[in-house]
């Protein structure tokens, strides 16, 4: 079966997020004053072939842990949808 995997990679709590802070710092100058706590992460999507939704999910989680994220600085949220 075909699944669509979507992985949200976010900076871990407590780890500085230079990208987010830089955006946040520049917002007031651009007239966006009402925003706070900007965090920038990554969004990874792909199609995956697996026997079942469970199998797809565990495959994607394995990819996440071994390769797609670095647990020292990142957290991941995995979503797998049948297509």
């Amino acid at each position, binding site marked *: 079966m075909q699944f669509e995997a979507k992985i949200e990679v976010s900076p871990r709590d407590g780890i500085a997020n230079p990208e987010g802070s830089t955006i946040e*710092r*520049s917002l007031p*100058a*651009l007239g966006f004053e009402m925003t706070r706590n900007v965090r920038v992460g990554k969004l990874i999507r792909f199609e995956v072939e697996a026997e079942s939704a469970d199998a797809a999910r565990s495959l994607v989680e394995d990819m996440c842990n071994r390769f797609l994220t670095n647990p020292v600085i990142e957290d991941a949220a995995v979503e797998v949808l049948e297509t």
Partner: protein
Amino acid sequence: MSAAPEDASVHRALGLSDEEYEQIHELLGRHPNHLELAMYSVMWSEHCSYKSSKVHLKRLPTEAPWVLVGPGENAGVIDVGDDIAVAIRIESHNHPSAIEPYQGAATGVGGILRDIFTMGARPIAVMDPLRFGPLDDPRSRWIAEGVISGVSGYGNSVGVPTVGGEIVFDETYKGNPLVNVLAMGVLPSERLVLGQASGVGNLAILLGAATGRDGIGGVSVLASAGFDENSEGADKRPSVQVGDPFEEKRLLEACLELLDEGLVSGIQDLGGAGITCATSETASRGGAGMDVDVSAIHSREEGMEPFELMTSESQERMLAIVEPEHLEKVLEISAQWEITASVIGRVTGNGQLRIMDGFEGEVLAELPASTLHDDAPEYNRPMSPPDDLTERRLRDASQGPANCVEDLLALVCDPSWVYSQYDHQLFLNTVVGPGNDGTLLRLRHPSTGEETGRGLAMSTDGNHRWCYVDPRQGTKMIVAEAVMNIACVGANPLAVVNCLNFGNPEHPEIMWQLSESVDGMSEACIAFNAPVVGGNVSLYNETNAVDIAPTPVVGVLGVHPDLSEPPPGIGLPPDSLLLVLGQEPESDVSMGGSRWAWEVGCCKDGVLPEFDLDHAVRTAAFVAESVQKQRLKAVHDVGEGGLAVALAEMAIRSGIGAKIKNHDNHISMFNESGGRVLVAIENRELDDFVKTAAARGVTAKVIGETGGSSLQFGPMVDVSLESLTVASENQLPEALGQGTVNA
């Protein structure tokens, strides 16, 4: 292969005029089909065919005994001795950068690098002359930041150091930035390869990235059309290309390895007009023809039409011409570098370019390969000076509120915010990097790495203010400035490349500017004995029908004959004498075209100061000689902002000030009389130095001495180094890096 006479809307939409269509009709002896029409339209676009500028470019001097390859190939190549050849080229990526600054600049760097390794050279340096709208315009800031990150992001990652450039902000570039990129590479002289296909039966192999729909029609739509507020937008958007420096790096290594192993007989990069250009150019240069199988092209998307595959400008691709017996080895090296390689063409003997669906399949297009280039139209467009030229020249540019201290503080600007984002040290060659006059690199043998004890110097220079006031003399002065910059690091010029950034060629005054500029460049290049070995023309630089100020940009390459010691640099030494070398400004020197007049005085007209080209030639030679003989303690040429800005830069660099006699009014501080160089020498050297200068026919005048913690002009003008440093360092960081909006 016949096609019905078609309705004129098709060729017009493709940017071909009715006359051009008629010419194609005649060349083929029949009506072209849509694929053929698309191929002519991309190849006959201004961008690919230089149809408006060709007649003028012919007047440039292009020959010297050391020129191995002049204009017309992918890059110029010169012999620098010790069996080393240098390939150099400059190109513009102005229009793409206006729409997507990061990717526009990134793909500009990628494109110019391919021009260099196409010649068999390993690229070792990039330079990026950049011009943007004013810093107080948010969109201009957005463009500037995106472009700078694009150069940094692509150049650093592909692994070629960016060793210099320019950064200029002016109203004239609002909406139409100029993003020029120069690249230089070195190769063992014997390995020079040309982009040509010969040998019937040889294979054309497409290497690199998959072909996508990006950049379809980019040549005619993106590169040759001006912008106005309405058309800028949705319809052009899908044409943006995304650069992949990692693909380019692997492609570069793979191609150099193929050349090292002697596996290719011709090689050509894919740029404007994509596969159409590469296949027809290689074939017609080699006097051959080619069959191209569109179904063999590896593509990124499904269902691409032949005309899309043939005109796509997807980045990071090369075409190699290979004898069949080398095919296997070529595929092996490609695989090692994880480069996709497809055999897409076969060289034929009949001079025809045939586009086919499978080598034995249907013929989709057939035309004489050479007609795409050699028969491209050539226009001698009407030209005339602007109507108000005489009137403009009568205006006095020296008027305005002059406060010498404040003006000086406003005119100093440290560009390190830009170049500190560029790797400028890779390959361990950079003796003098960005932030000085010319860049100076160690010259080492490209295959053995052996040092020659000599150096390669480069500088890029342009000045739209000078060229707006007087395109002919202004261009002479920028060539002189570029040469003076490399003289300051001890080098003598060998060759020039140029990028002619002008407005709409359908406006007669633009063609006049271009023609004048070419003549000025010719005269200066002849005087400096530095032929033009390559260049690029970018026209239609306009926003809402307003043309940019004429902006020819030149890059000069030279050699330092004995690099045992680094040059003295621009920083002022303590307790020394300061001299100005070169032509002395007339007592009533004009401020026309000066940065002071444009940015402080607010008069853009007038005339340029008198300029003595021969004196500049002698001065450059004398400066280079003095640096080589290590007789100077500091050296810096005088350019934008005149004497005062040059001195300020020298003082800021070392934290040592100077006392200047006289020169205490805005005219003598900020005039931009050309061909001058500031030098510092020890007191006891004075007599001998002035004598040598005189013997070389160079005027040398003591103007003051170094020391102290401020810069003083006469008894009245006194600026502390601290305030100068703060003003200079803060200009860019205060405006850039603070967040921008794209609208």
